[in-house]
């Protein structure tokens, strides 16, 4: 016998249809119109983006919708230079947390719009607290990539 031990390749592919619910449906409809929508808790006053149906702190329903400006400050970031199966974007790319103006939580997205492979450029542009703004995708699908990325602003 050639080998005593063997492995077999066995991929698991499964289809899903995930329900967005009312709150997230409206949030993504907003992106399609180039609006970033948050919800505000009537008890603690915090504004959440993406919009939440309830306040994670107070456990009460959020009822008030807020238009959030498409700009904010950089909280943290990293350059992704690793590959894996089913990755949606080809590395290298930058993922970041952004605190949008008027909100009380950080928003997870890409940062791009300059030569991200240039280390000096990165150091110059991507300081914590740096201002960034949303760059919209020309084609909209009512999903999170309707925002193409956030770009540093001077």
């Amino acid at each position, binding site marked *: 016998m050639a080998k005593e031990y063997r492995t*077999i390749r*066995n991929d*698991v592919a*499964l*289809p*899903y*249809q*995930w*329900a*967005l*619910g*009312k*709150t*997230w449906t409206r949030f993504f409809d907003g992106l399609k119109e180039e609006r970033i929508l948050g919800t505000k808790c009537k008890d603690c006053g915090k504004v959440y983006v993406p919009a*939440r*149906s*309830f306040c*994670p*702190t107070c*456990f009460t329903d959020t009822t008030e919708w807020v238009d959030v400006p498409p700009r904010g400050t950089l909280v943290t970031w990293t350059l992704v230079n690793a590959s894996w199966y089913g990755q949606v974007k080809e590395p290298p790319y930058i993922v970041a947390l952004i605190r949008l103006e008027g909100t009380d939580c950080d928003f997870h997205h890409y940062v791009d719009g300059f030569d991200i492979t240039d280390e000096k450029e990165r150091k110059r542009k991507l300081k914590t607290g740096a201002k960034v703004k949303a760059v919209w995708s020309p084609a909209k699908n009512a999903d999170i990539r309707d925002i193409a990325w956030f770009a540093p602003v001077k």
Partner: protein
Amino acid sequence: MGNAVAIIGTGQTRHGRRSDACYPDLVREAVTAALEDAGITLADIDGVVLGTMPSMMEGVSSTHFYFAEALGSVGKPVLKVETCGSTGQSIGHCGFFWVASGMADIVLVVGSEKMSEGDGQATMTTVFDPFFQRTFAAGAPGVFTMQSMEWMYRFGIPEEKGREAAALISVSNHDNAMDNPHAHIRMRVTMDEVKNARVITYPVRLLDVCPASDGACAVVFASQKAVRKSGRKPAWIRGLGFRGEEFFYGESDKAVWMSATEAAGEAYRQAGIRDPLKELDVAEVYNPFTYQEMIFYECFGFCPRGEAPDYVLRGTFLKGGELPCCPSGGTLCTNPIGATGLIRMAEAALQVTGKAGERQVEGAKLALSHAMGGVDQFNGITIVGSTL
């Protein structure tokens, strides 16, 4: 059994196809209802237990992360427990262990499933090993039908008699579901409709099989101290049992089914039950398949082996019978799998606290709840009573 533990509140969603709600919102719907029923807030909860089917059902791994806010588990200890179909009983047991150990006064236990979002049978097929048996697996119906065929053959039950009894189980569960505002399938069916429905896995037909439901259930477990403080009528945990078997299908005897028999036996010993048919007032048996429900009746000692169809046809388990089974309409009419076993426990608690509304079995004091999981591999039982 450790310190005394009781259920002081339960909450269920409206079960069914819930495309109107994203998954965390569905979970929160049950949590909110349970908190209200128990008269407590999130601040009163010492720990949270979540259960669902395998992550492949959800398409999101480790859903206790995804649901942290909806569970109210932020800043609290959280556990996830999975045993496929018996998950609901396993998480209930886990809530019991936590309070019985004295480490917590109030534990919130939540089971949930959104069956409409994935491919249920394809997911369940991945519970089989990838080398030997998955190829031939046909989800849950394949296994449960093979088991039912084996059982009828073993005890010489004529196919027509099995068919007649299974049809009556379908009709009565559908009737019962009409009394349950949470139930997914709420329609009456006739014996003829059941017997002539489309074949799924012969002899099992469409109306012998549960639906794929979206739904969640939350149950609040409390210590004696917390029961007093709540002022709520408690459903005391009187006994529980859980047993597993070997993994490979075909290795253990499913016609007499050790895990179902011994899980019930263990729970009966703790609860001091000798004659379950006489002593129990109501049972919520996990019955996604009509034929299989009869095997459970035998394993739980409700009747002798091979005689379940006779007892069924005599009306023993109907509303008003000696031991009404599944007055909620059961799993047959509502099956959000990760929640289902906990729904059985919640329904049993509602019965012994007199809160079951239209589906109340008059004067019920002692109730059995049950769930089964895996490739006929696990069985869990919890018995609740109106007194300790």
